[in-house]
């Protein structure tokens, strides 16, 4: 495969589609659970997005390489084994070399296993496509997942705690002096759902392809 065809228009679509038209969170409504849990602050959201990026791209490639060998009756179990192995490896490596990050992520590394996006991509894409394409698909979908996570975390941390990456933005801007107070609701899980809902609304209002026919 030449470099040209690797980044052909079709392949670029694999990367760009999940960012908007086919976003795993806002369009397919997958991976909501982790989007609720770790978007209280930006930092864990970013690290989670990166971990999912690694796990999803590698799992996609591994499953794609084995796609002709996997017995279809136990394929879901095989996916779970592949994902769980990768997640444990990521967790162990983080603990050994970037201990602080691993502490920051705590239980959520383990929760990557339960992220429906990963299983969904393995089943829908990696089982039917060659490793190169599967890798791009993995990248694209984790970007699509990550960007929503970061947007939601941005608003929740800013409005809920008045900080960004722990830096007291609102205090420095002097917003509190004007009578503003942090919205404690934003740090509770329900507001993550509302924030995602607002994103979906905004995206559907803007993107004609997503407007469903009567």
């Amino acid at each position: 495969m030449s470099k040209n065809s690797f980044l052909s228009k079709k392949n670029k679509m694999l990367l760009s589609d999940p960012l908007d038209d086919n976003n795993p969170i806002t369009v397919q409504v997958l991976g909501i659970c982790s989007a609720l849990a770790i978007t209280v602050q930006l930092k864990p959201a970013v690290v989670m997005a990166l971990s999912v990026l690694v796990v999803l791209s590698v799992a996609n490639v591994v499953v794609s390489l084995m796609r002709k060998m996997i017995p279809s009756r136990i394929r879901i179990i095989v996916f779970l084994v592949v994902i769980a192995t990768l997640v444990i490896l990521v967790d162990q490596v983080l603990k050994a070399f970037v201990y602080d990050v691993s502490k920051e992520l705590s239980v959520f590394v383990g929760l990557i296993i339960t992220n429906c996006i990963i299983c969904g991509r393995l089943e829908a894409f990696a089982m039917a496509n060659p490793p190169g394409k599967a890798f791009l698909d993995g990248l694209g979908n984790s970007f699509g997942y990550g960007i929503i996570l970061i947007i939601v975390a941005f608003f929740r941390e800013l409005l809920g705690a008045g900080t960004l990456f722990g830096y007291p933005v609102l205090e420095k801007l002097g917003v509190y002096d004007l009578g503003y107070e942090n919205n404690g609701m934003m740090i509770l899980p329900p507001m993550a759902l509302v924030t995602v809902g607002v994103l979906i609304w905004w995206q559907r209002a803007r993107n004609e392809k997503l407007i469903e026919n009567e």
Partner: protein
Amino acid sequence: MDVNKNSYTFSFAAIMVVVVAALLSIAAIALKPFQSKNVLLEKKQNILSSVGINIDREDADVQYPLYVKQELVLNANGEIVDGIAFDVDLQKELKKDKNLQLLPLFISEVDEKKQYIIPLRGKGLWGPIWGFIALEDDLNKVFGAVFDHKGETPGLGAEINRPFFEDPFAGKTIFEDGELISIKVIKGGAPKGDMHGVDGISGGTITSDGVSDMLYERLSMYLPYFSKVKSEMDNDLNISKTDTLLTLNDIIIK
């Protein structure tokens, strides 16, 4: 080859399990030394942090012996027993009967004053929480505290390891008229001037309660030792008083 044959499915599963098991075992064994070192250094870092010495984890090995002067292992009666306090695993001790538990205690010196550092361990919402609380040499006033957790919710319960939660512990007292009150983490905020309460974390009430329970449970285990140290202190005070009287007497006689 027919990948849907039963025999193929079984052998595929069997080989997969063996390969994965081998892979993970190798990774676990190869990474173990790095991970244990991190945990060890972090413990030293946390102990120092409870007495207000904040250092990088890499420096913990060098800095630790400069401040921590004594490491004691106590039994439930407050007697000092043989053992290495640093290696006492509270997770295992807490499973034992109360009378059989070994209680580690670290005594540090900062600014020429003594602090008693007590390791803590308890339950949060999702898993264990732990920490260290340092008491001043009167065994009443809190010098400082650090907390940490395995998997509390980020932004909520996980905030117990942040300075804004830990710092207010300093200066509080754990006794009231000789009775252990410990320090409570109060939902909605502690009233001003409360010597036994600190502000809780919004949305992290179960973790906050876990901190209160942990503090009370652990501190109460050290009461026999505290009373021993206190009576020794009183004795010392009496002896020094008698000494002064004797010297005065001598002067008068002369």
